[in-house]
């Protein structure tokens, strides 16, 4: 027993030695400038493309982006464990207040959310606002429902139950989609409301865009929502949606930009295109934001970040369309650039 008496002290000594050796290792490796980001997974492919291209042109700057989800991104910003965050659901006032020194949100790119379906023999589909709100409320239950048939004269709609597929995991996609449905249907707002993980009254839940896509592809009669870029690359059949002015519009870069142009961004650059009014606008479009701090004490880091943001906002926008994103309208880019200049040390 006497021998064992001092072992806890010994254990602590070993542990501290081990931990301190780890610390000194990680501290010594920062030769150049390293920018660490984390957040939304939706814009991650585009962000990674930008950051990789920027890193290749500037060998002294290394940018890491981890697509851990908007919620974790915001949490990392609040905990100050990253240099910048990213979020599809922007940031609540209350959350912004918890960051000492304040944050600057910058819309970096935009995306559309499409309603994809799988009904054999129906290559194109128009969905009125009442129809798709009804489907996701569980009120429109069959594919040959008069609400759907009215907008699709001539289409051979089968007498098949509608299998609604929604996202099981919390996601910015669900947030934007439920926000749009809340904007067009008071009933939806009351029964469900906007959330990253709404309590859907109907539907089977699948994990991630890939899960929803798998359910759509393998289950005839199903309908679900996915990101535009994802639906394109997976060749899903998507529906044209009725917008505020009563026109049926398919998702495209042009119709997405028309929707974005109708949003007047406020001073904090957080604006939603929940229900755009323009005639050519696709109704479900959203910006996605990068979250920067207002102040960076390290001047080198600040300069690198500002340069990176400028690159992303100018040259970077050319990469957006190929990856299924909507390039920012010129007015948003100029507002972003002005905001980048206001970040100081």
């Amino acid at each position: 027993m006497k021998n064992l008496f001092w072992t806890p002290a010994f254990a602590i000594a070993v542990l501290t030695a081990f931990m301190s050796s780890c610390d000194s290792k990680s501290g010594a490796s920062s030769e150049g400038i390293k920018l660490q980001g984390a957040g939304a997974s939706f814009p991650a492919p585009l962000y990674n493309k930008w950051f990789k291209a920027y890193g290749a042109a500037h060998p002294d700057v290394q940018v890491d982006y981890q697509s851990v989800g908007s919620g974790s991104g915001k949490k990392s910003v609040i905990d100050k464990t990253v240099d910048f965050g990213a979020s599809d659901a922007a940031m609540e006032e209350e959350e912004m207040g918890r960051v000492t020194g304040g944050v600057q949100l910058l819309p970096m790119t935009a995306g559309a959310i499409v309603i994809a379906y799988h009904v054999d023999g129906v290559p194109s589909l128009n969905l009125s606002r009442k129809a798709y709100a009804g489907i996701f409320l569980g009120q429109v239950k069959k594919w040959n429902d008069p609400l759907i048939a009215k907008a699709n004269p001539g289409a051979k709609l089968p007498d098949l139950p509608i299998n609604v597929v929604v996202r099981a995991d919390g996601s910015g996609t669900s947030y934007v989609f439920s926000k749009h449905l809340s904007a067009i249907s008071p009933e939806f707002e009351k029964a469900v409301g906007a959330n990253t993980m709404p309590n859907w009254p109907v539907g089977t839940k699948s994990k991630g865009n890939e899960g929803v896509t798998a359910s759509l592809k393998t289950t005839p009669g199903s309908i679900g929502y996915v990101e535009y870029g994802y639906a394109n690359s997976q060749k899903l059949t998507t529906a044209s949606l009725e917008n505020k002015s009563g026109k049926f519009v398919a998702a495209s870069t042009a119709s997405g930009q028309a929707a974005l142009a109708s949003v007047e961004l406020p001073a904090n650059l957080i604006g939603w295109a929940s229900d755009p009014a323009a005639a050519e606008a696709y109704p479900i479009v959203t910006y996605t934001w990068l979250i920067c701090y207002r102040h960076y004490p390290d001047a080198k880091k600040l300069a690198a970040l500002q340069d990176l943001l400028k690159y992303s906002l100018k040259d970077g926008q050319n990469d957006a369309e190929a990856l299924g994103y909507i390039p920012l309208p010129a007015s948003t880019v100029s507002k972003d650039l002005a905001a980048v200049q206001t970040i100081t040390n």
Partner: protein
Amino acid sequence: MALQSPSAGGAASAPESLFAVRPGEITQAPTGLQRMVDSTFRRLSFVFACCTIFLVTFIVLRIVVSALPAMRHDGLGFLTGRVWDPNTGQHGIAGEIWGTLYTSVLALVIGTAFGLAAALFLSEGFMGKAIFTILRGFHVHLHPFWAKVPDQVEDLLKRLIELLAAIPSVVYGLWGLFVVIPLIRPACNWLHLKLGWVSFFSTDLSGPGVLPAVLVLAIMILPTITAISRDALVSVPPKLRMAAYGLGATRWETITGVILPTASRGIFGGMVLAFGRALGETMALAMLVGNSNQISVSLFSPANTLAALLANNFPEAGPKEVGILMYAALVLLAITLIVNIFGALILKRASRSAME
């Protein structure tokens, strides 16, 4: 170091005299070096044992601390509530608890049936019998020398089954989504149509649901059950087997009456381990179970499990929800702990009755 030191004294002598008792050696007091190595090794083991306990305690404490606000706010109603709606602030995990236990128990039943059968096949020499019978059908009579080959094939098969454990769980999930669900859907919907009055078939399978999740989960826990059961079956003393045959028992009587009861402790241990894995399995279930808070015995309806709930919610959880999710994690931890304690108790009882 510690392992080498006792033989250090004998290293100088020839290998054949390794086991020879040399006069004086045993009674010799250990050298100072031996004593130091010995005590250092003992202390090091103690430190590592302490680290493990410290780590587990630390994890549990951290979870409890983050869960405390939610526990205070929701109380025990959290365990019985069935609605999960962040918009209205309602959180309940009765559906998830039910789904976790339901899928795990079903997977354990299926996994044990197949796993034990595979273990018996691989340990009782059925392989050789099967091969020789087939060959005899083709009028090929092999020299007994070839009896060695089936043993090696058995070993290969065992390794193949163990390889199942090396497949990442996301691959299982994708396989379930793209292969299992389309494969079983016609049969499931036929069952629902013809036997819909049976509560197990009371809904139709529209995609992810309990049955695909259970099937994939059963395959995932199969290697654990098979490997441990086979080891237990192989280690049944050959004397017992011979004695049973000597008393005139048939092969089946020997297996069911002597070998399985003797190996039951090991088999049960494997089941407990497998059940633990089934309870905590996350990724594949998050993809396959349908993630809907229903309490239904229907095999085709979507359900939810605690691990899937955590996996689905964590990435987008705000500070408030993290506490609630930690609470759910604590419940999962408690369920796993209770299962393990029960397993240990039953194991103890079984071994005691076997001794008597």
